[in-house]
């Protein structure tokens, strides 16, 4: 397996040396140091983050290719290879396209713009909602329009696999539908809304949970569940100020405990100083209903204070202090201890 992987990477790299404007290879990656203080304990580690290979190119005027492949550390001496995106795009009319393959589900700004390269992330971590219910990838077909009209309107309509798998679409078994719209009244601003729906046969299998911190649950519900989600995004990235707000609401329904309403909101503010320095703050909240059988009761807040320095467009360093706590201090069985974290991340691109 290692030799196959090595040969794939070598051959793609070799092609990269002779890349024309129609075929390009780029590398992205990050390194991370983390200290976690929980009660009286301190854990620290320095780790190799995701390393990725990004390839894109055109077959002709209408067909194009894009792939994003990551390599992740899994255990001592072992790495996991993931295809995060692989899609063929057919640009059939002006700015309208038909896409087939595996792509990031365009449910919010973060998932539609940042993907896996930490170089682009405004904060070190993804919002909390990503570790609980955001279906990061979809494998299927997609209709896309972008920069339409004076206000740069865009749309996405896709049908693909449900949450159980990200790489295999059992067409008559479990499907998801995503409808998303966005518009950019001026270049720096983007507003977006989306709707996502799926019916799961087994609510315990959610591939996208692999993107976040998993909390172990005993007696996980593995029956059928209907999942519907609404998201709203506001993004402003100007020359000085930066703002990103991601709101997510979902409604789950089971025969056992009925309807549960859950929500999450992530808010980020940054201010650019002398072009390359961005001090920032972020506030993240996630709240689930007691009868939810998909995410399970989880009520947390996260405060972030951080700083980013961009050495160039290809390398930056971020440092942030994070504080996690419960929304309510009711000390019930769902409560989790407060946590302080200190993280430094070096992210880069090679091309």
């Amino acid at each position, binding site marked *: 397996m290692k030799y196959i992987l090595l040969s794939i990477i070598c051959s793609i790299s070799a092609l990269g040396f002779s890349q024309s404007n129609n075929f390009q290879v780029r590398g992205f990656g990050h390194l991370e140091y983390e200290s976690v203080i929980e009660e009286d304990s301190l854990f620290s580690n320095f780790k190799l983050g995701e390393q990725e290979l990004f390839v894109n190119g055109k077959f002709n005027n209408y067909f194009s290719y894009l792939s994003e492949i990551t390599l992740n550390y899994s255990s001592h001496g072992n790495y996991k290879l993931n295809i995060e995106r692989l899609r063929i795009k057919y640009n059939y009319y*002006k*700015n309208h396209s038909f896409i087939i393959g595996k792509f990031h589900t365009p449910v919010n700004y973060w998932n539609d713009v940042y993907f896996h390269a930490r170089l682009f992330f405004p904060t070190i971590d993804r919002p909390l909602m990503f570790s609980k219910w955001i279906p990061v990838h979809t494998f299927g077909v997609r209709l896309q329009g972008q920069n339409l009209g004076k206000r740069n309107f865009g749309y996405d309509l896709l049908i693909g696999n449900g949450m159980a798998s990200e790489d295999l679409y059992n067409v008559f078994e479990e499907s998801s539908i995503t409808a998303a719209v966005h518009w950019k009244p*001026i270049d720096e601003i983007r507003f977006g809304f989306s709707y996502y729906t799926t019916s799961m046969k087994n609510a315990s299998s959610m591939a996208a949970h692999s993107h976040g911190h998993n909390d172990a649950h005993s007696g996980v519900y593995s029956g059928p569940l209907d999942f519907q989600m609404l998201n709203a995004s*506001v993004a402003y990235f*100007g*020359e000085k100020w930066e*703002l990103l707000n991601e709101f997510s609401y979902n409604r789950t329904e089971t025969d056992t405990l009925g309807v549960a309403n859950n929500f999450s909101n992530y808010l980020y503010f940054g201010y650019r100083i002398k*072009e390359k320095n961005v001090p920032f703050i972020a506030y993240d909240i996630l709240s689930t209903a007691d009868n939810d059988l998909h995410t399970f009761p989880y009520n947390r807040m996260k405060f972030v204070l951080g700083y980013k320095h961009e050495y160039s467009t290809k390398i930056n360093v971020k440092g942030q202090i994070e504080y996690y706590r419960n929304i309510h201090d009711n000390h019930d069985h769902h409560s989790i201890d407060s946590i302080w974290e200190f993280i430094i991340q070096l992210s880069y691109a090679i091309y």
Partner: protein
Amino acid sequence: MRYIRLYIFLVLGFILCTSYTSFSQNYSSRIAIVGNSFDNKTFTKKEIHSIFKGNKNYWDNGNSVSIVLVLNDEDEKSKYVAEQIYNKSVLSVKKYWLGLVFQGRFEAPVFVSNNEEVLEVLKKNTGAIGILVDYKEELDSKSLLNILD
């Protein structure tokens, strides 16, 4: 509910205040816009800004849009183009393009070193469009585009 309204008000208020400066975009006679194979050779400045930001994939004649740019960090002409066309710094324009390509929304521009290389790439690529700054030589009337205010 009251807090949600206040929250929305603050977020939208912030955006309106900070985006005010983004509407002021003009450029002077130092810049010439050149292209290869166009049916319509007259554009407004607004259209030019939109094209160079990657908002248009195809020309009306079906040729795909290919952008040619000179963008060097310390070059005064590059800073001028970044400011006049993108209303950004050179660093921000580079980040903008890296992000756009990574999102799969547009093909990367062809980055070259000087005006002569812009013209050279243009000659070889149908549908290519580029920017010349302080170019003193006489330009072929077929490649020079007319820009209206």
